[in-house]
């Protein structure tokens, strides 16, 4: 029973990290229809910043968390301004290839600066387990789940209730019409990138907490799987990203628990293919009719 509960918590933890990253994918895709391949690598940047601040500079974990999130936000906005903004009206394929280029750049840049081997990120807290009734639960896992819930609620409020959120929804619905209504489209897009990247920064801290390492290519698999999660849930939908993330997390947990961990990547991708074939817009996705 205890074993089962801790496995469930592991799945929930992994799923929460995927969900946070998937939220970033979903927001960017929702607004400019761009599959932001570099999103996974933004997480890598965040993890390296955590490592730099704590292991190299010896500052407190609180500073590390703040700096990681700030660095991710900055990198995200910078990528948008430098690489994507000049291509706003270009064919989709060109922007997609640019995104692949940015991802490639970040990965190899990190490899050049920090070396190819993984760096060990120190523990954020001394507290490793917490007692709840008769159960002892892993503290990072509980923190991850709680942070994800808070972040999702905050994001939903931001998108649904605030003025900026209204602008974001308007731009994602019709960019031209939004511009005519006096919405500053470029700054709205930048804001979307900032929010998505900040979420990735939080994801990076939680990832570093769970797996205590940073490596140049860590963003690749994590990002790809988070994207799978976003597509599973229906890209462009916030609850979809969370549900998708949890599904992917649990699927991996189940496969690992069955002793088939070498197949877990294949299972996740197979899940994606099945969902895309059966329901091409994902679980919560809206069907878009094609204009001629």
């Amino acid at each position, binding site marked *: 029973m205890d074993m089962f509960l801790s496995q469930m918590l592991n799945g929930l933890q992994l799923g929460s990290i995927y969900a946070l990253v998937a939220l970033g994918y979903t927001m960017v*895709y929702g607004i400019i*229809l761009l*599959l932001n391949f570099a999103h996974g690598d933004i997480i890598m940047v965040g993890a390296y910043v955590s490592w730099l601040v704590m292991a190299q500079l010896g500052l407190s974990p609180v500073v590390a968390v703040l700096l990681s999130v700030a660095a991710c936000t900055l990198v995200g906005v910078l990528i948008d301004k430098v*690489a994507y903004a*000049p*291509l706003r009206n*270009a*064919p*989709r*394929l*060109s*922007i*997609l*290839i*640019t995104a*692949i*280029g*940015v991802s*490639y*750049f970040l*990965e*190899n*840049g990190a*490899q*050049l600066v920090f070396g190819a081997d993984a760096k060990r990120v120190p523990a954020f807290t001394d507290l490793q387990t917490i007692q709840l009734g008769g159960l002892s639960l892993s503290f990072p896992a509980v923190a991850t789940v709680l942070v994800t819930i808070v972040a999702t609620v905050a994001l939903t409020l931001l998108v649904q209730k605030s003025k900026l959120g209204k602008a974001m929804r308007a731009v994602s619905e019709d960019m031209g019409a939004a511009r005519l209504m006096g919405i500053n489209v470029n700054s709205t897009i930048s804001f979307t990138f900032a929010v998505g990247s900040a979420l990735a920064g939080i994801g990076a801290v939680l990832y570093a907490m769970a797996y205590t390492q940073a490596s140049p290519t860590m963003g*690749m698999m994590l990002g*790809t799987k988070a*994207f*799978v999660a976003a*597509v599973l849930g229906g890209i462009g939908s916030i609850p979809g990203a969370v549900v998708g993330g949890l599904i992917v997390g649990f699927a991996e947990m189940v496969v690992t628990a069955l002793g088939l961990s*070498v*197949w877990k*990547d*294949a299972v996740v*991708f*197979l899940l*994606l*293919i099945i969902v*895309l*074939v059966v329901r*091409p817009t994902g679980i919560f996705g809206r069907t878009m009719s*094609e204009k*001629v």
Partner: protein
Amino acid sequence: MTEKRPIISAGGRGQGAPDARRTLPMPVRYAINAVLVLVILVVGELMIDGGAITRYQSTVLEQVGIYIILAVSLNIATGYLGQLPLGHAGFMSVGAYGCSIFVIHMSEALGVGARDFVTGTPVTAALVLGGLIVGGICAAVAGLIIGIPALRLKGDYLAIITLAFAEIIRVVMLNIDGVLGIELTGGAAGLTGIPSYSSFLLVFGCVALVCFLTHTMMKSRHGRAILAIRDNEIAAEATGVNTTYYKTLAFVVSAFFAGVAGGLYAGCIGVLQPAYFGFMKSIEILVMVVLGGMGSMLGSALSATVLTILPEALRAFSEYRMIAYAVVLILVMIFRPQGLLGSYDFSLSRVIERVMNRDFPWTRRAARADAGKEVGDDGR
């Protein structure tokens, strides 16, 4: 303001009607190109035999040829069909494993040693050709299995589903031995003992064949249908093009050639590991196609050549190579999204015809300016 051209031309250069233009008959065109390819193959082979090209250089040349096939084959799906598959390395790995497993097991059954592949006997030639075809067919089957569900989706979804399939292929190659209980792919340790059957002649013979087949396909009715789908899928469907059939066809042909290239790759490096065929390999091939110009076979071939030779030449800067790749990719997309050559393709016959007609760029520009003036005069 675009240049005005007369709608009904009376041959603006006072040289008679346009149908008086002298052209080369098709058999002559084919003959010229065939002779050219033969000359290149023979000269290359003689230089290798004579020692003018070292063993190392000829290995690099073989890799250039393999990457040309990969880039040209991806160009079918990217440049001509207008989709973005991110799993080309997956097809390549299926072809590589299919071909080398066939060759290894058949040569064991027929009692052919590894030495025979270097010297070359009729049996080994047949084995290698058979292996390449088996590899190509394996990859084509994989392409068909992937293509049918994938091509129902568009753009990014297609990109991500092909990426997913390529990753699944990699995981399967890694773990299939444990499931089947027999030694097939060798898992993470890799498949060893592949005879080194790739040679300059074989690789560049395949390059010529692949380019020829691709070219003729694209100039045929089927190629036009594929181009029509790229330009506007809905319009193509409305004019009676069976879009599903032609999309799958282009995808399968692209996968087949990638499989052949994989087979050649296996014979060139001698060891296969699933890790060789990761996402990065797909991106590397994609960079070649994008850089050269999507839809230009010459562009794909040229950038494949440059991007294979350059890293060898700049071994000292290998750390910066990948960053340079990334920066170049971004810059090209921002400043020249259609690629360096766009959709321009070189045709020797066209050049010869131009010379026959004394139709040079400089005379033509003057003629076009004259024609524009005529129209402008009538119009106003």
